């Protein structure tokens, strides 16, 4: 059986199946995966018991601003990169928002009197949980994001996979932040970043394989 190009063209024109936009598919995929991550969260970690008091601490709230800004920026960039002609130009600055929030948090903490020395705040009590819980809760979200992005046409699959990693780490870190009692921005900038970098690397590696089209 052979198929001439003219025959293929006629056949393509006959196939009027409509595909859903990538953003819609990504939203569905993340909504399907989030319960899995939340189940992991509630069975293994749970919200910290003093959460009502903690909410009055601006550094507790800042963690959510940072992780949600990261997740939102990564969602926007990954949708942009799902178009074949897209480049990062003009989009990278979005990631300056979570980074800038963290820097602002660190400098304002520096200006306040502190009970604990800097290194103690940085090392914290939960670094090992942080570094395992964020990547673990990210995995279902990362898988869902990659499946959804396969629906797009990213011409830079490793980069698109890395952004999917940032996206899933951002959401997982948002869950984790409500469990963790370390609120110092120094802790966040160290351990959340290491955990996020890990997930981003996994995303890049997976993306370079599964996001080719």
């Amino acid at each position: 059986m052979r198929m001439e190009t003219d025959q293929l063209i006629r056949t393509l024109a006959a196939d009027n199946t409509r595909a859903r936009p990538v953003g819609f598919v990504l939203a569905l995929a993340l909504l399907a995966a989030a319960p899995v991550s939340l189940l992991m969260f509630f069975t293994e970690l749970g919200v910290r018991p003093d959460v009502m008091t903690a909410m009055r601490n601006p550094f507790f709230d800042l963690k959510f601003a940072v992780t949600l800004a990261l997740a939102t920026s990564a969602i926007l960039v990954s949708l942009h990169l799902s178009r074949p002609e897209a480049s990062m130009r003009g989009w990278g600055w979005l990631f300056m928002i979570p980074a800038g929030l963290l820097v602002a948090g660190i400098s304002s903490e520096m200006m306040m009197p502190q009970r604990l020395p800097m290194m103690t705040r940085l090392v914290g009590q939960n670094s090992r949980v942080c570094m395992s819980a964020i990547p673990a809760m990210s995995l279902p979200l990362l898988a869902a994001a990659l499946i959804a992005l396969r629906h797009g046409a990213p011409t830079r699959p490793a980069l698109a996979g890395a952004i999917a990693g940032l996206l899933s780490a951002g959401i997982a870190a948002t869950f984790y932040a409500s469990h963790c009692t370390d609120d110092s921005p120094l802790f966040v900038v160290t351990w959340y970043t290491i955990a996020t970098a890990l997930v981003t690397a996994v995303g890049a590696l997976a993306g370079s394989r599964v996001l080719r089209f």
Partner: protein
Amino acid sequence: MREREDEWTGLMRSAISGDGAAYHRLLKAIAPVLRAGARRGLARAGQPVDQSEDIVQDILLAVHLKRHTWDANAPFAPWLFAIARNKLIDALRRRGRRVFVNIDDFAETLPGEAAAETVSASEVAARLESLPARQRAVLQSIAVDSASIRDTAAKYSMSEGAVRVALHRALASLTARLREQ
């Protein structure tokens, strides 16, 4: 050239809003341009240019299956050439070539160059053989025997909807099989 690309954008807009004839015209208009670009890319990589038709068919399949990623407010040509380059790079890589694709391989094509001979694609033909029987039968009926969707449905006692689904799956798995290689 500018005019040609504006015309493509217009045709693609009509195609997206359901105009099958405009879509057919668009695909017919871009095929020779893609062919010339594929030939130029193969020649640059020291490959025989008679393999260009496989690349053309792969680009057309990708254009079709990824058309929802085109933003109707953006010009069509940059989107098309990004997909074309991606497929050309892919094809050269599978031939074990160190890839060196000139970004203008497709965009530079002059209309006069575009009349290169059509040679049958052999890779795509080989992939056709490995499709599930039902998908292959539907694709054979519509693509090769030029039957309509309605006639194909009658021939295999399927509903027209089922034929459409099988056709779409067949086209999608032609591309998936390429990826697995």
